[in-house]
């Protein structure tokens, strides 16, 4: 093979990060680690190769995490490892990839292609690489995506003695599958998305093993209780809508799901309004509010977002350091449980970035799903070096 046929542009990138989590409270369970300072280390290199013509791309993004206090959080993953060919009106992707669907901020309702890497962060922003064959077709009426999804990924859960575990230990090694082929069940999904004037519209359907497990309890040999993940075959039809006009962005996303108890729906809808160039300083302040609704019954996987209101802000300083601060509160209208989150980040130097992340719980009653996390408030500092 001639060298010219192999590659054109190679780029090695990625980051390494040192992380400290500070837990001010003692644990709910004496069996959990009570360390108040918990260090971890992350390595995520990225390789991007693109052919001369730009039609072929190869991407590899391995991920490694080492955590001193949570042996299950010490884990590796292939976030991405794929080859993609772009034609005139179509594209084909084979391999492991991450795909995001949705518009809402407080909860990623319709996002379903990838499993959540729950040990990485309780915010469900981190996803495990998913094996797939993705055919994309670009038509005048929008973009059509068809996915064949192979190799189910189990949700990651904190170790029995780790923070952010929840009320009971989780028997993550012995999940139960509805599909007799277990992790080899092939899932599929379809999506259509387009932009028309001020609207962005998406319709999607997923059939296969749902990424959200039910968590029934069972008894261990020693007589203590544990949660056992049960993964069911589901059908989920999703819709996402965004209307962007002047400084207003209106958002709605939701699904209807069958296969976990009776059919149920989930919604997140709201707005983001941005005050640009605040006080003539170039600062942009976005104000967000969303309503979260979910009418699943007790058989389905538990959710905290049954009837909740989210308020948040996003402050971008538009400075040389790229400083951004985000904060939010989610209030449960029934249990009155509240959780608060903050994320901030800025560049310290050309290759260095500091990120701060915090999560706090307030007035969590025993009947709320967050009850098991009520003493796991934390503040996380992450220093990243990019290469």
């Amino acid at each position, binding site marked *: 093979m001639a060298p010219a046929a192999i590659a054109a542009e190679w*780029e090695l*990138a990625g*980051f390494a990060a040192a992380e400290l989590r500070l837990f001010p409270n003692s644990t709910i369970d004496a069996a959990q680690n009570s360390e108040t300072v918990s260090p971890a280390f992350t390595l995520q290199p990225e390789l*991007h190769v693109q052919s001369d013509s730009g039609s072929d*791309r190869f991407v590899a993004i391995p991920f490694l995490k080492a955590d001193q206090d949570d042996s299950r959080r010490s884990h590796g993953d292939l976030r991405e490892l794929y080859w*993609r060919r*772009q034609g*005139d*009106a179509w*594209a084909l992707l084979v391999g492991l990839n*991450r*795909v*995001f669907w949705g*518009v809402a901020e407080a909860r990623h309702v319709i996002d379903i292609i990838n499993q959540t890497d729950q040990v990485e962060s309780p915010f469900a*922003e981190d*996803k495990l690489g998913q094996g797939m064959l993705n055919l*994309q077709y*670009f038509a005048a009426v929008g*973009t059509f995506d068809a996915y064949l999804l192979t190799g189910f990924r189990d949700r990651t859960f904190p170790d029995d003695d780790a923070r952010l575990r929840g009320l009971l230990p989780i028997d993550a090694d012995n999940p139960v599958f509805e599909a007799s082929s277990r992790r080899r069940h092939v899932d599929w999904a379809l999506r259509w*998305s387009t*932009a028309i004037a*001020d609207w*962005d519209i998406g319709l999607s359907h997923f059939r296969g093993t749902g990424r959200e497990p039910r968590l029934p309890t069972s008894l261990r040999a020693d007589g203590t209780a544990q949660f056992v993940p049960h993964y069911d075959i589901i059908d989920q039809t999703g819709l996402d809508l*965004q209307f*962007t*006009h*002047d*400084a*207003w*962005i209106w958002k709605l996303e939701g699904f209807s799901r069958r296969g976990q108890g009776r059919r149920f729906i989930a919604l997140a809808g709201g707005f983001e309004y*941005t005050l*640009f*160039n605040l006080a003539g300083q*170039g600062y*942009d302040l976005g104000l967000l509010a969303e309503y979260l609704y979910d009418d699943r019954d007790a058989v389905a996987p538990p959710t905290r977002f049954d009837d909740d209101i989210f308020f948040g802000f996003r402050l971008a300083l*538009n*400075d*040389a*350091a*790229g400083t951004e601060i985000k904060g939010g509160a989610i209030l449960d209208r029934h249990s009155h449980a509240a959780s608060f989150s903050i994320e901030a980040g800025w*560049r310290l130097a*050309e*290759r260095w*970035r500091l990120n701060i992340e915090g999560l706090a719980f307030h007035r969590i009653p025993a009947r709320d799903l967050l009850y098991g996390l009520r003493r796991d408030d934390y503040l996380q500092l992450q220093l*990243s070096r*990019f*290469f």
Partner: protein
Amino acid sequence: MKKANPALFSTRRIAPPWAKMIMAAFLLFAGGHAANDALAGPAGKDAAGKGLAIAIEADRRDHGFKDYAADMTMTLRSSNGSESHRRLSIKVLEGRDDGDKSLIVFSRPRDISGTALLTFAHKKGNDDQWIYLPALKRVKRISSTNRSGAFVGSEFAYEDLIRPEVERYTYLWLRDEAVDGQPAHAVERTPAYQNSGYRRQIVWYDQAEFRVLRIEFFDRNNALLKRFTASDYQKYLGKYWRPALMIMINLQNDKSTNLSWKNYEFKNGYNNAYFNKNRIKNLR
């Protein structure tokens, strides 16, 4: 960058191109004058018409480039002299019935590498703009009403980078004078669009090629805020002038930003399908 001007991306064309050309022909050639005769005419109550004619001629000379790509390095200098850098590539498709479509992909700083900004400029109303955030693998439509805010922390505002459509300002020819030894027209222009950060600007076009050599920006209180200079112009396809260096100095806070351009390539055969929000995830 459609004209010899500090335009990076986006355009909003209120009248179709042919209307502008007819208008230019009328203003420049009415009464049988050659273009430069008309432009060299006396000031006074004709100053507005002459200013407009100069702007139209600058616009006309850059029409029809179809598309181009370029790489740009941005150097941000703080008042104490410390520097930071951004590197990006840009692709622009010239609009026919509507505004230009443009795509910017950042490669530096490394923490935002792969971040892409897709803009559809429109004749009327706000532009459409999507941003791709690689860490979240997420494409988001964002609000494009913010014209006066800093672009990625630089001294360039978004409105300084938008290709200045003729109809978006009113004009007043001030005087003819030399800029660095080049004979130039000094034209005052006043934003006719909403949300501008400026009361007015003074633009110096060179008389030979109608390239922008210098712009002075006055804030809303009419105080001199920034001075822009463009230099090292090169001609592409025998017609389209592009500067290799742009400098924006903020005279109120002593910060500055340099844009250094290279690898200009014209007529790459881009089409509308290329500028698709579902394709910007794979452009790094």
